[in-house]
């Protein structure tokens, strides 16, 4: 039975190492998904968190500067809106009045500093003849700054 015990110990060590890696990995990579109203309600407690916020780009709010590649716009979920700042190149499908998902943190000025924009990419894939809402599908946007 000595052999069995050795395997047991080996197994426990492997499991422990794996759990540690998973835990560590999750800590740094998990991103919470919020709506503009949720973010508005918890603005202070979400100050340092890396978040993903989804909503509609408010019509008329998009302010872009192609020379500096900076974008300012508001995202809304119907009840609340949240200002967003982005430097970089948004995906092709990103435009006013359409859904978008942004990733980043709230800056000191209370503006959401997005590092990534993902545009909502619903209609083309699915013929929703059954009247169901289109599925959530996103095109990965381009990262604004290489780390």
């Amino acid at each position: 039975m000595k052999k069995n015990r050795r395997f047991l110990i080996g197994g426990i060590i492997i499991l422990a190492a794996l759990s540690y890696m998973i835990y560590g990995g999750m800590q740094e990579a998990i991103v919470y998904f919020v709506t503009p109203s949720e973010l508005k309600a918890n603005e202070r407690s979400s100050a340092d968190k890396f978040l993903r916020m989804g909503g509609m780009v408010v019509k008329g709010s998009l302010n872009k500067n192609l020379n500096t590649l900076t974008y300012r716009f508001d995202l809304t979920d119907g009840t609340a809106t949240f200002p967003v700042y982005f430097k970089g190149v948004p995906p092709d499908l990103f435009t006013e009045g359409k859904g978008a998902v942004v990733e980043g943190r709230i800056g000191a000025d209370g503006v959401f500093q997005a590092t990534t924009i993902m545009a909502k990419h619903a209609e083309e894939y699915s013929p929703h003849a059954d009247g169901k809402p289109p599925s959530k599908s996103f095109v990965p946007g381009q990262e604004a700054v290489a780390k």
Partner: protein
Amino acid sequence: MTSTLGHTSVVLALLAAFCGVVCPIVAARARQERFLAFARYAIFTQFVLVTLAAGALIYGLIALDFSIKYVAFNTTRATPIYYRVTGLWGALEGSLMLWEWVLIIFSGITASLYRDRHRDTMPWVIMIFSIVSFFFLTVLAFVSNPFETVSPVPLDGRGLNPLLEDANMMTHPPLLYTGFVGLTVPYAFAMAALITGKLDEAWITTTRRWTIIAWFFLTVGNLVGAWWSYHVLGWGGYWAWDPVENAAFMPWLPATAFLHSIQVQERRRMLKVWNLSLIIIAFSLTIFGTFLTRSGILSSIHAFSSGPVGGFFLAFLSLILLGSFGLLAYRADLLKEQPELDSMVSRESAFLLNNIVLVSALFTIFLGTIFPLISEAVAGVQVSVGAPYFNSVTVPLFLFLVFLMGVGPMIAWRRASWDNLRRNFLWPAAGSLAFGVALFIWKVKEFLPLLGFTLLAFVVVTILYDTVLALRARKRIAGEGMVRGLVTLARRNQRRYGGLIVHLGVVLIVLGIAGSMTYSLEKEATLALKQELKIGNYSIQFEGLKGSRQPTHFRVEGAFRVLHNGSDEGILNPALKFFPTQQSPIGRAVHQSSLTEDIYLILSGFSEIDRNQATLKALVRPLVIWMWIGGFVIALGTVICIWPMKKTELTEP
């Protein structure tokens, strides 16, 4: 008309599949050979009917029969003929049709190839195939019917997703499906072995080639997917740990583990339960992958649509898991006797570690993929798990795997002596360490990349060293020169040398991944005419915009002159495509490859007024090309592994 033909074929095939499930049971219970023949006919009948149905759908797509909803949604009058055909796997219903078609082709080949062998297990093999086929046909007949009609018939169709209009999309899904479906063969034989209680190595020996073929298609299917992502999606990457990429990748892990651990069972009669479990898991993951991608429960670029299909797949998945592991538990007493591991330093234990690493990788990827579902279901919190999780967890695991790739093929079975270790590993280890030190002095200062490149060198050197030793032996014994010696070695032991070549291919892929993960550059800017963007050793000059009308879209392309270290490398034309059916343009990135690095350009915008301004994103991706080269090397190795040889030539050296 076409739709009636197709749908009728599907329904009739469903009846044949039912016979295919019932007849083998009768054949085995009543020992009635007649029913076994019926079962075989049931498979062949399905083959004919499903081919007819798939043919009908392809015909509908080519002939633009817009009365079929699927055709109307996936083609337009302007769609070129080859993209009409690829429309077969452009959306959910068609891709299920393709899946069923490939499945029934595999079943047909198996049933006719082994018609006179494996008399005890064959009925059950046919039954398993028919059960899987029955499930897919049920879905095709009643849940997501590709032959559904529309009325009034639209004048023009809506067209394929423009992102799918690419040559790679002609190959990526069929390759991947062939890999997925190929795993059904070892699975069916494994289940038949469990049902009959004939749990020796026969099922493994019979299906070995099939497993290698399935593995190969899985590998290449994933690689082509990565290539498509790199080439078409225009974000400069090839792998985003998107749930659907994970779904396609996950079966590869247990399949790879299985491919290695069956060698332990063949050689040492160990790991029986483990091997059976691996193949059950691999097969279940192919169904799970379809569930994940086709049920719409995860947001993803690949997710076609939500609908009732998801529920069906989930139910089928549960049935497979319960049935298979139930059988395994039922046969537990037959699977008990197993020789034990002699030493921790042996080939068995290298294979065992390889399996542990692969299964760990599978577990972590699986967890990361479904974590958002768990989180939302349990805590009601919407989260996503980003690429950093997958990278940080899998990179160490895969590096360890690379190390094992160097050790495994060379270490002795049972118990490696000091002598064996010294003979096989002393020089390779010293050589690769020296290589690592040189790399450190030259350029690579970070720990993980340095470790990675050193381990890759270790694998290459062990393989070369071993081959050189074997060649020397050939020279001594038979006086053969290098080329002749290599041919003899490969012919005498095709699995070993084919396998080693596959390993070299994997090394090249890892090299490409490591290089591009570590040393990529990205930069973006809005350029006026003649203005330059500098990135790495490149400077890119904007030379103007041009618009042109294409069959399905309007295309705006930029001209950018690429200068590398001052020398002119020509003009690249990244473009934006404007499809009338889409609200936003689709980017068309371009890149120029060399053996050391790729320069990759994305046109992200332009000034619509005077056309003398363009926004450009440029990336430098080192060593990416080696991933694609690695794919070809793997193909070569696979061909050597499975090349049919006459029995007399197959003697072990």
